[in-house]
């Protein structure tokens, strides 16, 4: 019942976000705020589960809301066809219990983390590149992603050279949804203190203990 009463923001409705919407709807998350200003393109077909041939050119949020209604009528989709930024984020996230980071740009991820801190909700981060992925949980105000990526770091990571192949978003989105459900149902778990690295090539999933503060100069 906790899940059915929850409202979760899925920010980004592409590779990670589409799969997260699918899984959170099937799990019975009461309300899904789905945030993305983009439309589907042909290069989304390899990994974005909400994208079909007939969806090319259609808004991603439209496909996501339709899919939620097809899967589970007990779940209410709340599509927001905008790109989240510092100006609109607080209004979008207000009333949510958690947010799931399914963005494709590190700068936007940091804006989302700042907004989650202002609104006071946890953020479940995931990102991918090649057969690598990472998952972390940013408690409100922890600045975990900013400590990890750096406030003035590069906007993109190794996905620029590695691409985003088919299986990686499925693996990482499943882990993000598992952590989101855990948070919503009262659990803590190892990602409170750790970064999970997912290496689908070597098939290793190390937990790396993180600290938030900057080192002494």
């Amino acid at each position: 019942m906790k899940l059915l009463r929850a409202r979760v923001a899925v920010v980004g409705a592409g590779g990670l976000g589409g799969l997260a919407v699918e899984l959170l709807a099937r799990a019975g998350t009461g309300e899904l705020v789905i945030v993305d200003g983009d439309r589907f393109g042909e290069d989304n077909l390899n990994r974005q589960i909400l994208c079909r041939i007939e969806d090319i050119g259609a808004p991603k949020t439209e496909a996501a809301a339709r899919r939620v209604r097809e899967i589970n009528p007990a779940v209410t989709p709340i599509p927001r066809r905008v790109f989240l930024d510092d100006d609109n984020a607080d209004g979008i996230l207000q009333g949510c219990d958690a947010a799931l980071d399914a963005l494709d740009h590190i700068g936007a991820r940091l804006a989302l983390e700042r907004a989650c801190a202002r609104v006071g909700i946890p953020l479940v981060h995931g990102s991918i590149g090649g057969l690598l992925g990472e998952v972390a949980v940013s408690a409100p105000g922890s600045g975990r992603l900013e400590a990890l990526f750096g406030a003035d770091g590069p906007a993109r990571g190794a996905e620029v050279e590695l691409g985003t192949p088919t299986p990686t978003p499925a693996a990482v989105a499943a882990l993000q949804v598992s952590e989101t459900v855990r948070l919503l149902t009262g659990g803590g778990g190892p990602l409170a203190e750790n970064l999970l690295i997912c290496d689908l090539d070597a098939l290793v999933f190390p937990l790396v203990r993180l600290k938030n503060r900057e080192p002494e100069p």
Partner: protein
Amino acid sequence: MISLTVHLYGKFKRPGTGGDMRMEAEAGTSVGELMDRLGLRGEVYRMVLVNGIRVGDGHRPADGDELHVFQPVGGG
């Protein structure tokens, strides 16, 4: 001398050694100099955590520190 535990992930792993290794270095050696020894200095997408904190190449680890070296990813 300082002794460090180093974990390398993904394509940074060294063939035949797995991802975990020990490194000995002169006290005061920087992360950048350690990356030189590993052949990773020029990697554009490289993140180094020392004891769980992201550091730049100028950081000088202390004896017993633990380093994690991997490619940051930002795709979705």
